[in-house]
């Protein structure tokens, strides 16, 4: 370990390797998800939103909490699901509508959930998962379990009433929750400065925290260590009963918002990022690609002697193998019996 490492970061080496692995596995998974539109056309139905480019947020945030804490997310939920430890094969089987999927093929890509890992049902309506996660934090507070909640959402969600209502109550009641705002600069296809008053005024989105008298910070969402440190502090604060924190992670997704929205029988496909396809600004996209969180983190880890090239290669290969095995598993898995549509309606 170099002197630089000792000064700079909080996570242990073991934790950083775990973070790196998570990031590589998310990337490999979502690269496959995009390819699968060509390689296995028709298998993914509806709308799918990859997490590539935003891996550092998932890895940094999840590394800073306990395994029994709760995690809630949005329709862009592949990252937190893999990060939380759900095997890729159960995720892919869900994306392909198979009976073996994590939600028995009833939810698909936008509605992943694994309550055995305290991964809350992903909420596919913008911002509407924020009150759910806030309510889970209320339960943690009332039951005095010592658990906290990480609530992930995008920049678009911060324009919804659900965001304002929930953060107000969370601050008022000092609920044990950390709000992770993934600002990837686009609400679906709309650039953030076209819809956000703070951005238009040249301010960070984290200033919204002021409205709720809670701490708000902005960090580099392409740097897992920066995210880790912010979430670590916020989690500590939440656990101590001091209430919520809003953490804006400025990032960039490397994929388009989602696959093309087309009506059957036209096949869907995965388009290029909106910077290129909508705003004719490929340069922006190229600039952000240079900040690839995985490349940067790998270089950092090698530089401080926490990781070797060989180890990195082995992590990559293992992730690729996991994808291959997931594909095999999902292909071999049966579809649900049609009548299962009438199960799980009532408890």
């Amino acid at each position, binding site marked *: 370990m170099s002197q630089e490492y000792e000064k700079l970061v909080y996570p242990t080496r073991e934790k950083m390797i775990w973070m790196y692995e998570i990031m590589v596995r998310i990337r490999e998974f979502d690269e496959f998800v995009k390819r699968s539109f060509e390689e296995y056309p028709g298998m993914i139905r509806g709308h799918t939103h990859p997490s590539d480019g935003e891996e550092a947020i998932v890895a940094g945030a999840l590394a800073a909490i306990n395994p029994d804490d*709760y995690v809630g997310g949005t329709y862009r939920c592949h990252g937190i699901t893999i990060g939380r430890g759900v095997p890729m094969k159960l995720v892919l089987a869900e994306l392909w509508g198979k009976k073996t999927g994590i939600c028995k093929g*009833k939810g698909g890509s936008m509605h992943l*959930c694994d309550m055995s890992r305290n991964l809350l049902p992903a909420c596919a309506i913008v911002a509407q998962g924020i*009150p759910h*996660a806030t309510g889970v934090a*209320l339960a943690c507070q009332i039951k005095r379990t010592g658990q906290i909640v990480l609530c992930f959402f995008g920049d678009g969600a911060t324009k919804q009433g*659900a965001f304002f209502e929930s953060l107000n109550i969370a601050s008022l009641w000092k609920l044990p929750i950390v709000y992770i705002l993934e600002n990837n600069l686009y609400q679906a296809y709309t650039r953030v400065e076209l819809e956000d008053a703070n951005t238009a005024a040249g301010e960070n989105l984290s200033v919204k925290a002021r409205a709720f008298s809670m701490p708000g910070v902005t960090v580099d969402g392409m740097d897992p260590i920066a995210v880790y440190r912010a979430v670590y502090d916020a989690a500590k604060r939440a656990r101590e009963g001091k209430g919520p924190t809003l953490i804006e992670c400025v990032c960039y997704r490397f994929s388009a918002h989602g696959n093309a929205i087309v009506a059957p029988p036209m096949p869907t496909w995965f388009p290029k990022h909106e910077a290129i396809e909508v705003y004719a600004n490929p340069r922006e996209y190229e600039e952000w690609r240079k900040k690839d969180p995985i490349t940067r983190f790998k270089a950092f880890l090698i530089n401080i002697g926490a990781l070797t090239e060989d180890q990195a290669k082995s992590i990559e290969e293992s992730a690729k193998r996991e994808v291959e095995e997931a594909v095999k598993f999902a292909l071999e898995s049966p579809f649900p019996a049609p009548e299962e549509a009438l199960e799980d*309606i009532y*408890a």
Partner: protein
Amino acid sequence: MPRKITYIEAVNEGLAEEMRRDPTVIYYGQNMAMTEKDPFLKEFGRSRVRITPVSETAQIGMAIGAAIAGLRPVVDLWMTDFVLVAMDQLLNEAPRMRFVTGGQVKVPVVFKMGYGFVAGWSVTHSNCWYNLFNLAQGSKLVIPSTPYDAKGLIKTAIRDDNPVFYLTPWNIIMLTGEVPDEEYTIPFGVADIKREGDDVTVVAIGWMVHRALAAAERLAKEGISIEVIDPRTLVPLDKKTILNSVKKTGRLIIVDQAQKTGSVTGEIAAMIAEEGFDYLKAPIKRVCALDTSIAYSKPLEEYIIPNEDKIIATVKEIVKK
């Protein structure tokens, strides 16, 4: 010894009993438990009894989250009109959670709200929006019409593992009725025959149960015998009791305070048309609020809402056939 208490007292008794029985039951809403004198606050404390801001989306959405994490929230939402700002949570989230996760979660929440305040509240506070809640498979819909039913059903609602819309008609919350001292619950999906009769089946909901009973009393003097059925829970609906009654009488009238078009009365009528058509001696009739908005001025408001005279006139229209 049965006691006479008001409808609202019965609701509160049932709720308090459940909070005493089960420490995971929490209760929150707007403009409640504001001072330490509040009986719920005194008995159960600030952790389980909370005032919320005017934030229906958060109130409802947080109840869903708290339920997933092991609590049983009862959310007081005051009026069905007020939850229209939070329909995603009520229709697209709460009832779908269990299904979309492949059965991984339970959402035991009670959404408690009044409806249909007919006392000059005009267009935005007098509606009966339960036709919307009737659409959300995965949730249940309860409308008690008496203090006895109100108490028994809120206890069942709180113990149910699914989202339950527990709706109270504003116009009868001061109505008194007998409630036993000993504990009891009322199962969902069991209609109550409030009055037995042979000539016409009248299915009435909420406040309208009382208007149907008053109409039946007047008709009895003219020799017309009315059977009044209160479904008590619209989801699940006790089809059997309604079908059996129609089999006996051959005639069905459905009385509801909600507007006719798109209402739950259409569902009940369709159910009988599908499953009990051969029993019918006359067309199914519905006595509902007129298809307009609820007006402020008293004569306008009265004209819109079903009443005894309208029920009697409709009965006479079909008993001739």
